[in-house]
């Protein structure tokens, strides 16, 4: 970040926080000391967004009416959307059973990500590895246990390690690849995808806003400030798209993994 500060020294503008390290954007100081359960800004944002999501859904379905109001129909649209994913991917018989799980994933990730663009919060809790990690491990436990329940322990792992319809000699190469890909890479990529998207998005938003803050002065650097000011709505809309897309992708990939456990590949 030294170049950035050098520019600031040259062209002026007020910028207090020296961003020495990328961690300065994500590592918030502890507010309440409770050992491993310490609370900092990220956790408070997570509590707040979870509370808002719970409140909205509770409010919407406390006394449901046949002709839904605004809030109820919005929440029903969300659930219908997830039900569509589940029925499309897992199947019309076994799909609806997983709608509560997938809806929880979708709404939780959506609200956590939305904190990225909420004024005064501007920090997605999902940009800390703990949140994607727990979500990915949950998805992993669910799809492995569903596979064991539906196909039996031996059946499921035989299906994983020895996909049918392949010449016997190829199993030497295929079995390790399949096992690593199904049991390790799937949760790992689920985690890294959400985490890296949120980190990259947060850095992009911060860079845009800091650039506006530093350069938008009647000084030689003014064109850069104007450019950043014009670019900021585009960046925000793009981030909004990424927020929704990541929630959708995570839900859909979980559904895909569950469907591969529910029915053996042909």
């Amino acid at each position: 970040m030294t170049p950035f500060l050098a520019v600031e020294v040259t062209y002026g503008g007020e910028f207090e926080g020296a961003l020495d390290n990328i961690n300065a954007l994500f590592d918030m100081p502890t507010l309440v000391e409770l050992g491993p359960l310490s609370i900092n800004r990220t956790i408070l944002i997570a509590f707040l967004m979870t509370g808002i999501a719970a409140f909205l859904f509770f409010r919407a379905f406390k006394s449901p009416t046949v002709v839904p109001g605004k809030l109820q129909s919005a929440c029903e649209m969300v659930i219908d959307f997830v039900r569509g994913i589940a029925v499309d991917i897992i199947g019309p018989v076994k799909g609806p059973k997983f709608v509560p799980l997938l809806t929880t994933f979708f709404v939780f990730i959506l609200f956590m990500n939305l904190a990225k663009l909420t004024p005064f919060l501007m920090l997605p809790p999902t940009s800390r590895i703990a949140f994607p990690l727990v979500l990915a491990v949950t998805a992993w436990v669910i799809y492995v246990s569903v596979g064991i329940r539906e196909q039996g322990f031996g059946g499921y792992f035989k299906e994983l390690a020895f996909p049918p319809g392949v010449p016997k000699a190829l199993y030497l190469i295929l079995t390790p690849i399949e096992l690593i890909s199904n049991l390790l890479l799937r949760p790992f990529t689920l985690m890294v995808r959400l985490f890296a998207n949120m980190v990259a998005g947060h850095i992009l938003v911060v860079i845009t806003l800091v650039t506006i803050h530093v350069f938008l002065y009647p000084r030689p650097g003014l064109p850069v400030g104007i450019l950043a000011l014009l670019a900021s709505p585009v960046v925000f809309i793009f981030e909004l798209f990424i927020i929704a897309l990541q929630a959708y992708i995570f839900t859909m990939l979980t559904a895909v993994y569950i469907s591969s456990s529910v029915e053996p590949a042909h």
Partner: protein
Amino acid sequence: MDLVYLAQAAAAESNVGNGLVYGLAAIGPGIGLGILIGKAVESMARQPEAAGMVRTTMFIGIAVIEALALLGFVLAFAI
């Protein structure tokens, strides 16, 4: 304090390597995404009634390819 100094400062910070890692990691996935989305649009245009299925499959493919680029992004900071 001019552009030459800024360039020197940028190089001295040695973050250039990180940027290079991510830039290189983005080449393959970029080509892959281009082929994938292009083919998906082509098949949706040829057979609009299959658009829903193609879109779902396309998003799964995007997620798989995107993971490669994101691994590069994470490793750029890890190195």
